[in-house]
């Protein structure tokens, strides 16, 4: 929650961060979460920080 609040302060969507509790024995579940999260992030597009850095490089 604290880090999500900091992200909001910086204008970054807090949904870009999630925490999951898993045991070391839950490999398949871990893979499933990673796949879902990657799909979610693809839909979000690049982070504002990546955009800023790209612009900086172009300048």
């Amino acid at each position, binding site marked *: 929650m604290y880090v999500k609040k900091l992200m909001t302060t*910086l204008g970054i969507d807090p949904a870009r961060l999630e925490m999951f509790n898993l045991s070391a024995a839950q490999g398949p579940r871990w893979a499933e979460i990673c796949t879902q999260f990657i799909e979610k992030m693809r839909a979000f597009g690049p982070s504002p920080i990546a955009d*800023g850095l790209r612009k900086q490089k172009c*300048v």
Partner: protein
Amino acid sequence: MIVGTQKPFPEIWEMVQGFKRVLVFGCNTCVAICHAGGGKEAEILATMLRMKAAEEGVAIEVKDLAIQRHCEPEYFDQVIEEVRGYDLVLSAACGVGVNFLTQRIGKVPVYPAINTSFYGAVPKAGVFVELCAGCGNCVLHLTGGICPIARCSKSLMNGPCGGTDKGKCEVSKEIDCAWYLIVERMKELGTLEKLGEIQPPRNWATARDGGPKRIVLEHIAEEETAEVKK
């Protein structure tokens, strides 16, 4: 201890505009306890500034550093040259630290990253309450160990005002009425009759109204001077 809270991030971001090399300088004593300006918070703030700079496409170098205490020279001496190498020092210490560093740093500006709030205690993790106003003329022996200067919203010296309500202050239901607490405490101690004595108007010269204060312990200050002369 001294309690503070970090300034709103947009205010801090505004402060650093135009500077190329910024140091977020934390203090690991009081303001670390209240999670406002210790090494950990300095590191987080420096990271946030770097992220914001990346987001905005601003070229700025932000580093962080922390020492144990910003109010004594011994702790500064080891790092002062490094600190002088920046364009701006964003001090995460209390106002004392900002002032003291300003006196020692030379031409580098020192800006505050936190708002220094009060002298307080930590009744439980994450909660800080003001218990002393540093007024320079302690009356706790007359009031059962509960300070009417810091803890009564009006700093009354002879009992509660008409705004006391079931032990709470009219300013907020979150604030205990200091005079309610004083009466209850003195009943408990069997010293309630002491409150019958009227306290005369206070001399506020020992508090803020008396101007900046200075205390010199001659037996220590003189020894120190002699040591330096040797």
